[in-house]
Each structure stands twice: as C-alpha cells, then as structure tokens.
C-alpha cells in the first residue's frame, strides 16, 4: 500500500528523536525539534484551510531551518508544497504563487523584505505564516484581506492531527525552468516520491550516521533526495548557506559529509580551482551527480579526490520524479561504455520502464538512437492545470497500452547489457545540408581539443532545410583559433566543423544552471 511521504520522517523522529535532522544557517535541529516545529505549523494551517481549497502550501524560504519546517509542515497539514526562492526574479516567483492557487504561504525572515511585492498580484485570500517573527501588524494593516500569523499565533504541536492521505496526494508542485515561455508546473504525487525513496535508501544503505549535502535549492527537485532520503533513516541533511556554497570543498570537510549530491558543473569548477586533489575528501562514501551530462574527466577526478566513495551518475526529468536511471562509475571498465566523453546514464530504476523510439514513436532496434520514453511508479501526475501540455508529453504510443512520458532526450537503445547513453536533447539534433548532426558530438570534439568542459554547439545560420553550419560557444579564456580549428577539423566531416568559436567568461544558463542553448541561438540572431 502507498504510504504518505511524511511517514518516514515521523518514524525517524521517534527512533532518533535526539539526533540531528537538519543543519542550516549554523543552527541544528534535532528530529524532535523539527517535528515539533513542523507539527505546530501544520496544526496552524489545518483549521484555516477551507473546504475544497487547493491542497498546496507555498514555502517562500531559502536555506534556513524555517525552509525545512515549511516543507514538512505543509505535508503534515495535508498539503503539497510549492517551493519559492527569494533569489529568483520576483516576477517569476509571483507567477508561481499565482498559478499554484495555494491559499497558505510560509515565509522565513530573510525573505520577508520581498513579501509585499510577492503579494501584489494575488487576488485570492491568503494565510501568511511567518514563524520567525512575532509582530506582523504592519503587514496586516497593509493587506487587510489576508491573515498574517507570526510566532505567537502558532498552535501547539500537540494540536496536530494526521491528515487524510490519498494515493494521488501531491507531494510538491515544481515549476520547471525553460528558456522561453511560461514555466510549467509539474505535480508530483507522494507515491512517486516514496517509490523513488524506497530504492535510494536501500541502494545506498543510508543509516542514521550519514550526513548529506544539500547543494540544491528547494526549487530544484533534486533537493527532495537530500531531505527525504536523510529523514527516511534518521540521517542529517547539511544545508550550506549561499556563501558556503562557493566553498564546496571546505563544506564537505567541515560538515563531515558522507553523501554528496550536486550538478556535475560543481565538480567541473572544483577541478579547475584545484579543489579535487587526490584523497582530499575521505569522509565521502557516496557521490552522486545529476541534472546535466557528467564529463568523464570530472567523474574520474572526483573518484580520486574521494577515494572511499562510489561515484554514480543519475538521470531524470522532474516529470519522472528526481532521478530514474543511474550508472556506477568504474575507472577500470567505464571508459569503454562512454560516448562523446560523457558518462552513461545507465540503467532504469527497478520500477521504471524504458522505450526508445523514432520520430513516429516506433521502437528502434537495439543499438539504434532514438528518443527516450519512460513510465513506471515514478511517472508524475502531469502539468498543473494544463491538460493540453500533459496530453502532449504523457502519451500512449502505437501498439502499446500504457502511457509513457516523452523525455525529449536522445539515447542509444542498449545492445545486450550495455548501459543507456545520453546523446543530447532531441532539439540538439540539427540538419546541416541534409546531414543529421548531433550537436553533442561537435561539442565533445571541441571539448577534447580545447581542454575546457563548458562547450555548447548551436546550429547556425538557419536555412529552409535546417542550418547552414555549426557555431560553438566556449566557456573560458580565448585560445589560438587556428590550432583549435585544425584539431577539430581533423576529427569531423567538413559540414560539422564549427564556422566560428565564441569564447565567453560565462555562457548563458537557465534558472537551474544548465547551459541555455536557446539563449545562445538568440545571441547569434542578434548578431552577438
């Protein structure tokens, strides 16, 4: 039977009441303290929630104990949580709050200066809970239609009653970042998350002695791993401040982390900044990367720096709940399985199914490339209040009797027991003079030639049948162009050789810090 997402935390809070559950802002909360504060918040929200109201609570808090209390408190109140981030542009946050239709909002003290602006476009009546602050009278008089509740208004934790739980109860609503258009809200059910957690805690044999990093902001779904994997087994989640994030090496040592989880970019920069010296991080026993392609060079440098750790590359879109395939990096055998200098995304989780299809949604033969479709226990509910987009991405393929999610990622259908290899996005494949060109392949050759990891290829200029050629953006200092061009040209057919190389100190990235190919396309359109 499906279990509520909060049940693991409640179990741990009984067994490990005095152990540390969270470290944030240099403050530590034990399981008992976190439970008391979250139950108190939930008990305050519960009676305010009107019948038939959208079962969601927004959490406008960033890397503070209150952020964690807010997440748990929302769930314990019977609501899913909607993470909001004060480091995002306020318009984006306003639109998320507006579109989520939540009627309750938890705010930490540091985010309070943005509260007035955040509430401006909100028409419906809101309950605003600010557990860090006692006096909210100035807000109350400015916004008489809303109810403001400070620390003194919170109900005692004993008043909390376990809420009704349904199979499809939402765990969280996350807005995926996109370079164009309005972000889509992905509604993830509690059963999706518990299916994910079950596999993860068993695979990594998490115990109460583990200490997990929280490099991800809560607006990035990978943060769900850090919190709930830790709480499932009584471990501690260590949340660095915004400033500590820029010293990841020191953070690992000072926090005595055993489990690391970040985007590969962090490893890439740590390597360049000399923070991945052999044997530097002996405390780590599990190192995980997800969110973007993991370069082979970063995986092997990390393994040397964390010699007691395993290194795994995880893959998964938000729509399939955090991660749904993985690959263990093995220095002796992995190299033969890598394509384009990128670590494979590996094998699906036990409860997830893979289908690799061509443009007509027909399954391709083993060894062939195609788009990755997946389904299984982690397939989310779809896009919030958007049936058309949900129907377009979650579909029944010809000859099958079940719904699959279209990832938009290009993979190779494995031959035999080979791992899945990620070849780029579907939209990263372009036609140049009729040739089908995988931009990832161009990027890989340029990466090898210039020794820099931040390389993005863009089809350019546009023609009627596709593109006239390829141009490349490189993150780093300008290099000798002729030499670079010669090296790349020796490896690629002429139509794939980049016509121009654009060096930038920083390449455009989207809100989740992934390279933004569309933004680079726009730069070319605007004549750079």
């Amino acid at each position, binding site marked *: 039977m499906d279990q509520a997402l909060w049940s693991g935390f409640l179990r741990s809070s009984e067994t490990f009441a005095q152990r540390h559950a969270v470290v944030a802002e240099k403050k530590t909360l034990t399981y008992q303290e976190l439970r008391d504060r979250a139950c108190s918040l939930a008990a305050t929200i519960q009676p305010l929630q009107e019948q038939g109201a959208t079962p969601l609570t927004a959490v406008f808090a960033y890397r503070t104990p209150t952020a964690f209390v807010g997440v748990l408190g929302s769930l314990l109140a019977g609501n899913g949580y909607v993470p909001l981030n004060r*480091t995002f542009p306020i318009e984006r946050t306003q639109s998320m709050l507006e579109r989520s239709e939540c009627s309750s909002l938890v705010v930490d003290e540091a985010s309070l200066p943005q509260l007035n602006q955040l509430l401006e476009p909100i028409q419906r009546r809101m309950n605003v809970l600010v557990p860090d602050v006692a006096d909210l009278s100035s807000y109350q008089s400015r916004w008489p239609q809303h109810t403001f509740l400070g620390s003194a208004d919170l109900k005692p934790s004993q008043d909390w009653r376990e809420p009704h739980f349904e199979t499809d109860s939402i765990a969280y609503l996350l807005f995926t970042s996109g370079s164009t258009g309005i972000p889509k809200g992905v509604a993830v059910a509690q059963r999706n998350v518990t299916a994910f957690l079950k596999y993860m805690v068993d695979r990594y044999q998490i115990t109460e002695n583990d200490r997990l990093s929280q490099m991800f902001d809560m607006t990035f779904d990978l943060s769900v791993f850090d919190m709930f994997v830790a709480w499932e087994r009584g471990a501690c989640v260590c949340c660095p401040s*915004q*400033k*500590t*994030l*820029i*010293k*990841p*090496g*020191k953070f690992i040592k000072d926090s005595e982390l055993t489990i690391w989880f970040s*985007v590969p*970019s*962090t490893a890439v*920069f*740590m390597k*360049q*900044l*000399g*923070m991945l010296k052999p044997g530097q991080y002996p405390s780590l026993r599990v190192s995980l990367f997800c969110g973007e392609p993991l370069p082979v060079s970063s995986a092997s440098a990390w393994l040397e720096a964390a010699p007691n750790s395993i290194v795994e590359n995880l893959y998964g879109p938000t729509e399939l709940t955090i991660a749904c395939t993985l690959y263990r990096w093995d220095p002796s055998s992995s190299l033969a399985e890598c394509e384009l200098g990128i670590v494979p995304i590996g094998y699906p989780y036990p409860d997830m199914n893979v289908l690799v299809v061509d443009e007509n949604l027909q399954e391709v033969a083993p060894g062939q490339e195609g788009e990755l479709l997946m389904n299984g226990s982690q397939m989310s509910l779809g896009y919030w209040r958007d049936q058309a987009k949900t129907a377009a991405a979650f579909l029944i393929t010809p000859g099958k009797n079940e719904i699959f999610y279209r990832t938009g990622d290009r993979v190779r259908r494995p031959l035999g027991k080979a791992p899945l290899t990620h070849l780029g996005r579907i939209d990263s494949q372009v036609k140049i003079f009729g040739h089908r060109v995988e931009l990832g392949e161009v990027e890989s050759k340029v990466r090898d030639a210039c020794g820099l990891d931040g390389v993005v290829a863009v089809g350019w200029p546009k023609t009627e049948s596709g593109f006239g050629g390829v141009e490349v953006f490189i*993150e*780093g*200092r300008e290099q000798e162009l002729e030499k670079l061009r010669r090296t790349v040209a020796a490896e690629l057919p002429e139509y794939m050789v980049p016509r121009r190389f654009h060096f*930038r*100190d*920083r*390449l*455009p*990235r989207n809100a989740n*810090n992934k390279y933004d190919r569309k*933004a680079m396309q726009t*730069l070319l359109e605007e004549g750079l």
Partner: protein
Amino acid sequence: MSAVTPDEIQTFLQEYVAKALREQGRDVPPALSDDCDLLLSGFVDSLGLLELMTALQDHFGREIDFDELDAEQMTIVGPLKKFVAAQLANPSPVTPLDLFLWPCRASCRSYLHRDFLDPRSATDDSAYFRAHRGKHHRCTVDKELRGLTS
C-alpha cells in the same frame, strides 16, 4: 612580469559581471563599488561565483588559492580585489615544472646570491620565474648550467 594592480582586477570584474548580466537581459550597473557583494546583490549566483574564480585564474594565468579567503569576504568586490592582487604578487606554488627547472635557476648567476632553497620565500624570484618559464632551456642560464656542471 609586472604586478597586477587592483584596478586591473576591478576592470576584469566589471566586464565579467556586465557580460553575465547582459546575457541574462538584465541591467548593468555603472560601476561595482568596493562594498558590493556580488552574490547577495544577485549579480552572480553561487555556481557563477565558482565560474568567476575560474575565470580570474584563466585571465591572469595563475592558480589562485581561494581557500585562504573567507567565504564571507570572497563575494565582496573590495576584499576580493585585494586578495587576488596579493595572491598574484605571491610566488606560484611549486609545480613539478618548477622542481624540474630548479637546478637551472639555481645556477643562474644573478640568482646565486639568493636564498633559492625555498622558492616561496622570495617574491622577485617568482616573477622572474614566471617570465622565464618555458624559455628556460634555451636561455643563457642553461648554458651557464652546462658550464658549471661540466
């Protein structure tokens, strides 16, 4: 090789931030004041700051040991500038290349009177060393070395 001035670092930071903001379609501030916190002002995020550190290294062609600067200070323009300037004025950490070249350098007449046993002890040595890296084998020092050892 002449020392890098805080002004040069300021120019670099200014251009770096301006470029990053322009690429995001955001307004560029006229100047970065010394007390401007690049992170808290939202000009760069944490990953962007790691990128900036990498870019500083690339631009000035030297490894910079940022571990020595407190994270609180590192994101503020004034302290960051001062720190980078001081780091660039310091001798490079010893690399295998340095150790390989060490006997050549030790034999160079103009350096014979120096305390060359610890390459990190003399600032001028390091500047000299940077300037001569790679050329060392071909320079007269090499001839002198052969003369001395033969």
